[in-house]
Every structure is written in C-alpha cells, then in structure tokens.
C-alpha cells in the first residue's frame, strides 16, 4: 500500500490496493489536482498502479475512488481519518 500520509502536506491522501489495480489510468487522468502518476513498479499482474506524487495537492476529494472500476484506490480527507484509524497518522 502506498500512503503519503506521514508527510502530511495536503488536506488528504489516497490509499491504493496495488494488487487489484489494473492500470487503467482513470484516477490519474481525472484527478482534479493532477497529483497521481503511474508507479515505475508494477504489481504481480504486470500493471503499473497510481502513486501520489504531489501529496501537497491532494484534497482527499475521493474522485479517484469514485472513478476506479476496480475499487483499488480511494481518497480521504485527513480530518475524516482522524479518530478512525490511528495507524495511518504520523
């Protein structure tokens, strides 16, 4: 799982289940803040998956999550994560 949360720059972050991503690029192309890009790495099925490269721009709007046909990515606002799952917080 890729998570840029520890850097805590933007208002939100994304969580990617890299194993089930099929590299379709919807999230990357339709992220309003253009903060996702393909990884250099690929998963066991041979797909490149999205990586949050400009975490300071991520608002946690979850549009990526809404587009994803594979339910492999979702976005969340930090303020919503607080109190939910402490382990993802720095």
């Amino acid at each position: 799982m890729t998570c840029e949360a520890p850097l805590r720059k933007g208002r939100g972050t994304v969580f990617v289940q890299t194993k089930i991503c099929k590299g379709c690029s919807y999230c990357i192309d339709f992220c309003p803040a253009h903060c996702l890009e393909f990884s250099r790495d690929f998963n066991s099925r041979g797909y490149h998956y999205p990586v949050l490269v400009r975490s300071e721009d991520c608002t946690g709007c979850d549009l990526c999550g809404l587009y994803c046909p594979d339910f492999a990515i979702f976005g969340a606002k930090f303020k919503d994560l607080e109190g939910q799952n402490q382990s993802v917080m720095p």
Partner: protein
Amino acid sequence: MDPELESPLMPYLRQDRMPHIWCPGCGIGTTVNCFVRALMESGLNLDQVAVVSGIGCTGRVAGYLKLDSFHTTHGRPIPFATGLKLANPGLKVVVYSGDGDLFAIGGNHFVHGARRNMDIMVICVNNYTYGMTGGQAAPTTPLGAVQTTMPFGNFENPFNLPFLADACGAVYVARWTVYHVRQLARAMKEGLAKKGFVFIEALSPCPTLYSRRNRLGDGVDQLKYYKAKSIIKDGADTKEVGLSFQGEIIVGKFVDRERPTWLESMDKHYSSVFGEKYKPYGAAYAKA
C-alpha cells in the same frame, strides 16, 4: 509498514471474488462504484435490495455485489425481476444489465416492464457492443462503427434508448456516461428512491473490443471523448437524444414523472371491484 487499507466500498462487494473479470479501463466497474455509493446514501436496508442481471459483461455485476443477487438467462432479467418483486413487494429490485441483453434479446421484456410500470430500477450499461462474446454489433452500435458481425462498418440503425424507455412509459429516464460519475451516482440514488419503472443508461467504454476495433484508444480516451462531447440537457426531448459514432452525447435526466405502479393499479382496481372483501396485496408487505 502501514496496513493495507481497502476502499470503504469493499463491504458491499463479494471480496472473495475480487479482482473482477472486467478489463482494464472497462467502465462497468465504475458504474458499480457509483451504484454502491448510491446504495450507501439511499438509507435502504440492504438485506431488502436484490440485484438481477442477465448475461454479458454487465451481467456479471450481480456476482460481485454483496446483495441477494441473481444471474439469470440472456435477456430475461426483467421478467425474473418482475416475479421477484411481485412475490415480495418489500424488496427493492434492481436490474443491472447490458445493452445487448436488455434491448436485443430482452427488448420485448423491457417494453412490457416499462408499459406495466413495474416497480423496478433498470440500469443499462451501454458499451455499444456484445463484450463477453468478443465484440459483436449490438442494437445500440452507432452507424459506421466496426464490430465483428459488421466487419465493414455497421449499417443497421441503432436504438435511441431513452426515447424507447420514454415511449414505453418509464417514469424516470436518464442517461449519463462513466465520466459523469457524480451525476450517475446521484441518478442511481434518485432511481432507488423512485417508485415505478426507472431506466438509467450509463455509457461506458469497452476498451478491449469496441474501442480497439474502432481505434478509439483506451478507456481513458473514451472518457475524454465523453467529457468533450457531452452536453447536459435535463428535460430534453428524448426523441432528440440519439447517438452517433463519436458524435455529440446528450446526457441528463430526461423524464421524471409519476404513474401508478402495476401493483398499485391492481390493488386499487380490486378494491373497487371487491370492496371490503379484498385485502390489498401490497399491504401485506408494507414496510413498517
């Protein structure tokens, strides 16, 4: 390492069957994404929601949703859903199937389901093709598009689905594309709350077959086309919303009207015929 966090939508899916079989860039998954969000916001008791699909790529939706789900025969989800709903009107029944399944082999059933105003929601993922079987022409394939059974380009006139639905009496008719995720999810939410025959057409890419054979790029390229060429016209005359090959796409909520459902008509009629002696059928299943 941080723990794997899965999408909050996962509990609504049969996780033991993920990842699903749809191709990379196939929009069906996105429509399911919208549908799950609509379910989450609908306030419905999900034990009472049933999904019925036919055969085809979109027909596989039933197998991935963690609801009472029925993967029936080709073209026949609507009559199955009719039986399911009428036998237990307390269920919220959603038919989720593809353009070929619902409008070629299933065309007759669509017409009658709408005519009767069966209280079911029909989500049609229209990818202009028969995907599962390798990309044959469908009744929605635009003129000129190449498909395996129209190898020199389609010369057969396609359906204008919202027009058909409207003409048959559907009470809610909307078309969105999988680019319009927010609107699609909202339409599905409205559809779930609506009484009567609801029809939502969701245009989706089929990158492996329709797009590839017509050199339209991949899924994202189709979404970019949807974005560029869609025009939102709520309340448009459904006669005018026909589609053409890579042409303008009119999207929006076209029809939203009230009509008594089949069961309501039945109960009302029998009450007037039999008076006190008749116990309304729907009453036995009325939600508390």
